[in-house]
């Protein structure tokens, strides 16, 4: 009979501490799945383009006037969320509240501007496969942003209620991670639809 493996008494953290907890990892796996969704959306775009006839690209020189500032706005909102998370950690609740609220507003503006962008298009959802892919991809992104706005609103509410502090704020970290993910996706979607035509893709 060998020596018994024994659990030595050890001091362990209890519950989610900071961003360490199973909930964080759950958020990570679900975000990976959503990331895969956008990979397949972009695959669909590039695959259809590669097998399409000339002139498929309805936007060979897409205007960046709205899209570029809008994408940058969303990236700035990520900075705001980051500042807000730090505010929670350092117990500066007003910094946290303001930053989250600011991010929420920036996100809402993003959605509105994207909607305006859609209005400027001369083609509808069913005009061609390019049109369908453009609206579906940007639409899926907007849907994820809208979910993010609901999540941010909940974070604002819970922060105002004083729920989070230096030890317990896993909901904030998970929400922040999701928001950063959505913004990374916006960069990729922007690059695919607005930048690659200028690099010669689709000609």
């Amino acid at each position, binding site marked *: 009979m*060998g020596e018994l493996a024994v659990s030595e008494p050890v001091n362990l953290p*209890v519950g*989610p501490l900071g961003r360490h907890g199973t909930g964080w990892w759950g958020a990570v796996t679900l975000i990976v*799945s959503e990331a*895969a*969704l956008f990979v397949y959306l972009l695959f669909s775009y590039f695959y259809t383009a590669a097998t399409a006839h000339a002139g498929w690209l309805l936007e060979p020189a897409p205007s960046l006037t709205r899209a570029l500032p809008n994408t940058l706005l969303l990236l700035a909102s990520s900075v705001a969320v980051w500042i807000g998370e730090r505010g929670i950690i350092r117990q500066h609740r007003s910094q946290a509240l303001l930053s989250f609220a600011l991010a929420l507003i920036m996100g809402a503006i993003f959605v509105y501007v994207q909607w305006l962008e859609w209005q400027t298009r001369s083609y509808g959802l069913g005009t061609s496969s390019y049109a369908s892919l453009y609206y579906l991809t940007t639409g899926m992104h907007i849907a994820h942003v809208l979910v993010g706005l609901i999540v941010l609103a909940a974070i604002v509410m819970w922060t105002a209620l004083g729920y989070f502090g230096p030890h*317990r704020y896993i909901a904030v970290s998970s929400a922040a991670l999701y928001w950063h993910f959505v913004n990374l996706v916006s960069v990729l979607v922007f690059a695919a639809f607005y930048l690659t035509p200028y690099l010669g893709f689709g000609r």
Partner: protein
Amino acid sequence: MSQPEFRTPDIGIDSVEHQARLLRLWETAPGIRGFFSSVDHKDIGIRYIVTAFVFLALGGIEALVMRLQLAGPNRSLLTPDQYNQLFSTHGMTMIFLYAAPILSGFSNYLWPLLLGSRDMAFPRLNALSYWIYLAAGLFLYAGFLTGNGPNDGWFNYVPNAARDYNPGLNQDFYALGMVLLGISTTVGAANFVVTAFRTRAPGMSINRMPIMIWGTLTASVANILVVPAVSLAFFMLWLDRQFGTQFFDPAGGGQPMMWQHLFWIFGHPWVYAIVLPAMGMVSDGLPVFCRRPLVGFSLVALSTVATMIFGFGVWVHHMFATGLPGLGLSFFSAASIAITIPSAVAVFAWLGTIWLGRPVITTAFLFFASMVLLFVIGGVSGFMTASVPVDWQLTDTYFVVAHLHYVLIGINVFPVVGATYFWFPKMTGRFMNETLGRWNFWTMFAGFNLCFLPMHLTGLLGMPRRVYTYNNYPGWGALNLLTSIGAFVFACGVLLFFINVLKSARTGALAGKNPWDAPSLEWSVPSPPPAYNFSIIPTVASRHPLWEDRLGDHGIVSSLDRGMLLDTHREALASTPLDATPDMILEMPQDSFAPVLLVLGLSVIFIGLLLKVWVAAGAGAVIVIAALISWMWPRRSLLQREPIHG
């Protein structure tokens, strides 16, 4: 309720008071309340298993009706439309509503017991994955039962699935139902991944996990990555049909081939996801009946992962006849031939375990051992179709139908039935009847082979798939008759299985903690296990904790009788991903109605989308958001918020 941020959990031995405390903390409420709010993985596992077996029976009946139609040439039992709905619904049922959920069910039930844990990482998410599965199954069958079942095969190629060629609701039921089911698969997979990496018993380093953990873990990682592909494809199909988008319509610049790529990028990893966990069950169960550890344990674990990694790179072998350029075909052909290697590792390991062990012939053993042969038969027909030029003749004939049934029934159904005989005593405290079990086995084995072995020849004689009837060409009638007879014999075998389950649950011989003298942790708890699984958190020192005294390692031995008590709240232990060193105490949620409410909301959304009643879809969305916010609301008991606010 407030807790300090750090605590040293008490270490001790078991006692009656300790068990009573744990029972109070963990037991589910009785009655209807408990039924809908339970988050106990054992309840959820059994529900998955029962529901999946119901779908197995339904899918089987669909097959029997088809076999009646095909028993002879030019029969007219079924119209073409009825036949098309039957074969499509049969495929959908077996692959999506039986094969994956049954493995989720066994995994759900067994994982915490195998890992030495009190529950899965996300108990409420676990309940959610089951309720969504049930809702999706009901949704899909509502279509079938109203004459609007899927009718374009389970892989549903466009343009035949497009509205021009398929104007009814059939495709809308299928597309939306699959998107809904995909949510269940994804959240279930997330649960398995986090559970495997974060909630193993102390000392269960990654090389000590049972193979079944490796199997389901691998399948779950794959599902997280590929389910979005098929959900996207089905969503695009629904948009094409209902909103006039042009994803797949060549007239609008769409690409019918894109459906195939998206579908098979999902579909091929999926077929590995529905066999790897079952292979894990065999790898864990067969050695018990050979009275020795599995041969090549580490290699088998690694080959599980390798098979899946290869599995991401072979999807085009379902598309060899689509006119793709030769260079691409060559790559996928080579990968499809190469994937035989990691699969073969498991086969040799099982053969070696039997040869070097002392086989004890029980019904469970018969199912596990026969699976090895059926696996090989299915595997070699797959090897044949991996060669592109050979596949150009074999594909879309009954040869492929034979192949897919050997791999699916041989590597999923037979292990599942074996697993039922093996773990039934643990789940119910009773043995299944061995005499009935022998009849069950031999009837299933004979019927299955009588049905599907001739099918290889039917395919070699050129009979195509998915035909509702056929002319009296030489050989086709006789072979089809043999197949139909075999199908009914096989069905009798399955019926005997169900009878054995139902009978034994009531009157089976009583079983104790470890009736099979098996090595893994689930056999150290009572049968059936109490709600809290382990009263003492075990500390694990090897792959076979309950065999350590016999294997004579003389190293450190697992500690099952003394360890952390964790009985002050509903608590479980988290440990590091590789070494399983304890690193956190987890507060586990109480029973909750949020999952059921969320699924009700989801169902309203999807019914609204199906019937194009957008207000209903919106109302469903509101319910879903409300349920989610209530679910995610930071709770003091779960330490998701500071104890004092202000």
